């Protein structure tokens, strides 16, 4: 090993030097660089137009600047973001947020051409300096601790050289000089737990894989992210694909696999394209393929596109799907690590799990253990959506409380509303009430609370959310996505959904609550796979923490959050309504609003479809439209006789 080891290291050093020289040369003598976030979220916010405008403006102003696409910084609320480096001005790299076409033109004109950084649009500086407040002073940046996402949104995912220049693939080089057992020891000692949801220790899985006697083994990277509102894996692939490839290569070397498959959803076209390009680049540079970096380790990496079934995130169903069968979970054992895809031992790891590996190999297990909690070391990556001010992707140390995450990092609840609940772990997770805000985020605490870490989707809900309706929404999802194999999941979730449907329509009976509780418990106990076992979690936790809302729906036919359409009504407060104002009349799509004898407005409850347009249309000074639950609270005002005649004519 001694000779080979030096060879590999020398080869890598030479490559890194060459790459760094190339990049220096391209940078030239102080040519400005404009980095535009071009991940899916940024494109949705209009990044493609921004990029085009920047390029056009640079050309028309006859200045030189390099425009480079980057991934996602995690600040989805402020997309499209651009980071401008203009070394000649003496300013640090500056980040601008919400850069639409107009802003882009102005920034290029004033900063690139006239060296004036257009301070009114600046979000912050990307480095500490004395001129512009750095972004790290914002809570959204400052509280975060980034391992996997350290380079996300900062480097070009389409150029392997940027990753190498930052020391990328050095962990693979180091790994190749070590015995596989040493790597597994390190990963095991780091306490890295699978980030796909279950939290199984990655090191133990690898060791099981290593000890399997087989000629050929397979590593599968699970990027079949299907939870509503979760997009961590997509963003990581789109922002730093090489870190993932490096992790895959290290894992394959450690367990002795010669094939790796990245199972990514076909609904993520940009991620598929990005990782495909990255694989080609890595092969060209000798980090993948035959005899990696001159060693005797070879690895071929392929992409498999999943066709959009949520259940295919379950590892046995995922394997069935790769083999060309219908994606249905199988009973375990045998576990995939014993007999997986094509009968070979298969190690299935999530995108995030594998993306941690390079840092662990480079910086050691002790460093990794120093972050996070004793039983859940490292960081947690959450995609936070819903009613928070600053939604997006956040990477925080394990053990951070939900309160810090929601109120400090994400800026609290939007629109001055009150916090009501947070759904963690997607449709398989649970709804936690404000009593759990001080719960530390780690695998065990969340499971104890009845939620779960899941893959890291988090939906924050404000006071206007009806928890029965939320449970119904998630059950609707799991029910549709059930593969139909086992009785409990196929039929049980449908019954849960039907009952919840009835309750939200005001047709719930007292005994429905008992049936819900018992059925949910049985489905959890009796189902075959993880999808079924966790599907009733939204019902179980919402029943446990928001029981009074269920009771209000069933007994009083009232929706406390004024959400359920059948249980609410709109009426117009005659004391506030202004004579002569017709704003609501024009907004009503079903002509339910009429003029009363006092020349004010009222709603015909038999016609109203409860869309709420009148409430939006009513001028703020009047604020006359009221929403109530139960609907019987709305005063019934008769339509004046003459209007009826008019209608008839």
């Amino acid at each position, binding site marked *: 090993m001694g000779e080979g080891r030096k060879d590999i290291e020398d080869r890598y050093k030479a490559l890194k030097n060459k790459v760094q020289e190339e990049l220096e040369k391209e940078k030239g003598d102080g040519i400005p660089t404009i980095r535009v976030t071009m991940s899916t979220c940024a494109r949705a916010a209009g990044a493609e137009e921004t990029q085009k405008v920047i390029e056009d403006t640079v050309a028309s102003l006859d200045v030189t600047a390099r425009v480079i696409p980057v991934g996602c910084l995690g600040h989805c609320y402020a997309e499209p973001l651009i980071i401008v480096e203009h070394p000649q001005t003496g300013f640090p790299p500056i980040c601008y947020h919400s850069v639409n076409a107009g802003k882009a033109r102005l920034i290029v004109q004033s900063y690139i051409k006239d060296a004036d950084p257009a301070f009114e649009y600046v979000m912050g500086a990307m480095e500490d300096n004395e001129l512009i407040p750095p972004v790290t002073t914002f809570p959204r940046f400052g509280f975060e601790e980034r391992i996997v996402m350290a380079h996300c949104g900062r480097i070009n995912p389409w150029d392997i050289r940027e990753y190498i220049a930052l020391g990328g693939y050095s962990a693979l080089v180091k790994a190749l000089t070590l015995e596989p057992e040493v790597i597994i020891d390190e990963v095991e000692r780091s306490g890295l737990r699978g980030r796909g949801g279950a939290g199984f220790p990655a090191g133990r899985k690898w060791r099981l894989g290593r000890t399997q006697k087989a000629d050929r083994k397979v590593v599968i990277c699970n990027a079949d992210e299907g939870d509503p509102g979760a997009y961590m894996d997509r963003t990581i692939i789109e922002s730093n694909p090489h870190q993932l490839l490096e992790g895959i290569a290290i894992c394959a070397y450690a367990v002795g696999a010669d094939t790796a498959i990245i199972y990514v959803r076909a609904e993520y076209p940009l991620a598929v394209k990005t990782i495909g390009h990255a694989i080609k680049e890595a092969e060209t540079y000798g980090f993948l393929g035959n005899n990696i970096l001159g060693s005797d380790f070879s690895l071929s990496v392929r992409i498999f596109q999943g066709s959009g079934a949520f259940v295919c995130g379950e590892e046995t169903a995922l394997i069935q799907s790769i083999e060309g069968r219908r994606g249905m979970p199988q009973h375990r054992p045998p576990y995939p690590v014993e007999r997986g895809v094509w009968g070979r031992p298969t190690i299935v790891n999530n995108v995030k799990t594998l993306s941690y590996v390079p840092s662990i190999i480079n910086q050691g297990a002790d460093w990794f253990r120093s972050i996070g909690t004793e039983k859940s070391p490292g960081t947690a990556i959450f995609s936070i959506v819903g009613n928070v001010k600053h939604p997006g992707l956040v990477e925080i140390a394990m053990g951070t409380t939900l309160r810090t995450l929601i109120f400090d990092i994400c800026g609290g609840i939007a629109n001055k509303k009150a916090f009501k609940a947070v759904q963690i772990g997607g449709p398989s997770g649970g709804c936690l009430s404000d009593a759990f805000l001080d719960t530390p985020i780690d695998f065990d605490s969340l499971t104890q609370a009845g939620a779960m870490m899941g893959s890291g989707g988090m939906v924050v809900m404000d006071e206007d959310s009806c928890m029965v309706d939320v449970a119904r929404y998630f059950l609707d999802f799991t029910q549709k996505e059930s593969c139909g194999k086992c009785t*409990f999941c196929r039929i049980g979730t449908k019954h849960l959904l039907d009952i919840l449907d009835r309750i939200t329509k005001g047709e719930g009976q007292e005994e429905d609550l008992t049936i819900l509780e018992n059925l949910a418990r049985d489905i959890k106990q009796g189902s075959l796979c993880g999808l079924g076992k966790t599907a009733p979690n939204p019902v179980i936790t919402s029943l446990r923490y928001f029981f009074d809302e269920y009771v209000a729906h069933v007994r009083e036919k009232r929706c406390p959050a004024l959400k359920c359409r059948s249980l609410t009504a709109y009426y117009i407060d005659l004391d506030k309504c202004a004579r002569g104002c017709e704003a609501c009349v024009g907004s009503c799509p079903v002509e339910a609003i009429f003029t009363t004898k006092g020349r004010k407005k009222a709603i015909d409850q038999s016609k109203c479809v409860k869309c709420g347009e009148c409430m939006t249309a009513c001028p703020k000074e009047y604020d006359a439209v009221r929403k109530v639950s139960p609907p019987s609270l709305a005063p019934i005002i008769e339509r004046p006789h003459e209007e009826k005649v008019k209608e008839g004519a």
Partner: protein
Amino acid sequence: MVKITVDDRELEVEEHLTVLEACIQNGIFIPNLCFLKTRHHPHASCRLCFVSIEGYDRPVTSCTERVRDGMVVKTNTPEVRALQKSAFKLLMSLHPCHPKICPTEKPCLLMRIAKHIGVGLNPKPLEHIDRGLPDLVDFGPLYYVPNRCVLCAKCIHTCRTINQMPLLTFAKRGIMTMVAYFDGEQNTSICANCNACVDVCPVAALLPKSAFTSSVESRKA
């Protein structure tokens, strides 16, 4: 051979067996719909064959547990029965029981299970779910009755084993999941002379067209 105890009865059984197989061999009935001897890997989909095994904190499906020496199994604890009843009621909420027109030999497997676990053939307190499926689906030489089907997949497995190619498969998702047929001339000719799926179906959800027309006519008459 290993020794296991099932409901206080000592049994001596072969080691490679599952608990379910061992019990069936010894004449102990455990409710099941999807178990097939020829399956190497248990399908484990009907979720009826629960038993409680000493050392486990909750009931497990007996088709997926292999026997071990000294294993103590109980087939009728309250927890086991609760899960079995729950699963059975779920199945019955899709399966309309019309004994008079049902061509199964009485008592059918579902009746036997109902009697064994002590429940009726109705889904109460659950409501019957109407999926809006057709009464009959044309499967070449066969008819498929989706509302009767319990999706045990015995037909799919048997068909594949016998014909070495898939003629039947699952289709759709969730509550709408059903068995589907790969239509084609070649398949029709294989299918017409086989009937293995019809024989293996526990609930008469697959019927040869010939038998079906005669039964309909006899009912009319």
